[in-house]
């Protein structure tokens, strides 16, 4: 990768205009294409990373922690740390793996699956095992150890704390470029991808053969985002080796298996 440079809106406008007929696209349109390209780029790569401290926040008795509490522009939370430690990020379906669970009791236990058949009475009895709590009543002031996203706008902490403060590493929404000297830090290889996307979207207005001929530009844009993410995927190897996140439990949650359209 080449060194990062400061790229202004003016530079991006010029780069896009060089590829388009000026009489068919206004400057305002091109600016909107640029801001849209940066937004899409951010959803694909999580480019707009930053940190934010958040103050003591009383969660109890509510189970939900809005990410807007961290920062009003928060799109996604990557990491949360307290003063000298960090909280483990888990998946929604893993909350029942945090304690002894009905599932752990059942799976692989020959008592419940003799000869690969279900032993319904035994399983019914096992069903009376308590479901793990999110907030042990004796320790509502516990420092949380884990957290997970529920949607992009909410988090849940485990155990539910009655108030704490920390620091969050987040992806923020892309601030729109409005003035000509507003800037974004992008390397040249990424600028080309952004310009490609803008050109593609501009031709969407035309349709027809012109649009078909620039589909390759969308492909370029997506491939550049994939290359950007390849660096993130490399670090994901260590996460898998460490066994984190934990394996999904038997009953996957709705949040992790949205339907296809």
């Amino acid at each position: 990768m080449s060194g990062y440079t400061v790229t202004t809106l003016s530079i991006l406008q010029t780069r896009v205009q060089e590829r388009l007929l000026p009489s068919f696209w206004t400057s305002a349109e091109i600016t909107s294409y640029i801001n849209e390209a940066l937004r899409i780029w951010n959803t694909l790569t999580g480019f707009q990373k930053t940190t934010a401290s958040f103050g003591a926040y009383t969660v109890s008795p509510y189970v939900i922690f809005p990410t807007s509490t961290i920062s009003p522009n928060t799109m996604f939370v990557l990491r949360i740390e307290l003063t000298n430690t960090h909280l483990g990020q888990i998946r929604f379906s893993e909350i029942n793996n945090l304690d002894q669970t009905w599932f752990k009791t059942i799976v692989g236990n020959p008592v419940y699956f003799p000869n690969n058949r279900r032993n319904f009475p035994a399983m019914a009895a096992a069903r009376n095992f308590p479901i793990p709590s999110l907030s042990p009543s004796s320790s509502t002031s516990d420092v949380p150890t884990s957290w997970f996203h529920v949607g992009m706008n909410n988090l849940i902490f485990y155990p539910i704390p009655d108030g704490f403060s920390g620091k969050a590493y987040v992806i923020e929404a892309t601030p729109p470029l409005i003035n000509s000297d507003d800037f974004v830090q992008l390397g040249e290889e990424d600028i080309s991808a952004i310009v490609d996307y803008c050109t593609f979207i501009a031709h969407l207005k035309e349709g027809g053969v012109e649009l078909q001929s620039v589909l390759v530009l969308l492909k370029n844009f997506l491939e550049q985002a994939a290359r950007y993410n390849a660096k993130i995927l490399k670090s994901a190897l260590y996460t898998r080796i460490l066994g984190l996140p934990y394996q999904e439990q038997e009953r996957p949650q709705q949040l992790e298996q949205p339907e296809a359209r």
Partner: protein
Amino acid sequence: MAVTDQTLQNEIQTQLLEVPNNGASYGSGLYTVAEVQARLNYNADLFNKFANVTTQVAIFAATPNSKVQDFSSVIPAMTDIIAVFYTSNNGGTWYNIPEGSSFEGDIFITDQSSVTLPSLYTLDSAAPLTLNLFPAPTATTSLIAIIYLPNIGTLPTAPNGTALAIPDDFTPYVKYGALGDLFRKAGEAYDPARADICEQLFQLGVETAKSWLSSEPPQAS
């Protein structure tokens, strides 16, 4: 949540070769303002249904000794339920109640007299905006917290600067979902090629959002 309906309508108007005026009018007569707003609302709800980006929580008092728990007074409209939490001591201890089925409840829970902590919740035998707890809870101090997908397609008939309740950077995908619908409109406006591309962009947004929430960064292909 700063991207408004006027901004999105403006961008839609440019793609439809209309004069951009924040969605105030469509001079070609091929579209109406309310129609475009309706497509934005529909696709916002659809996007959230598939991607689960915007959630809300509602907490209400459980009806003791009753399987049927009516939450219509606290959630008048919703798209889907994400999770159900339960506390028998007024919020002191919350439990995640797993989703199950009435069949599962009947098979596994032979004694269905009321208990302190229900084992599962079901929707298959429940009326709209209610859920059934198996077994019924006993505590009079019990609360139920439902984390759900709200109806976010609540833009007014005429654009007035209302923000779309999804993260700003995902709003272009909703716009392309709406454009895809508009390009499929029968008549002069029909343009299946552009509709297909817009639909694919909508799908890209859904897959991207899902990849973030499933703890996997978007995959290289």
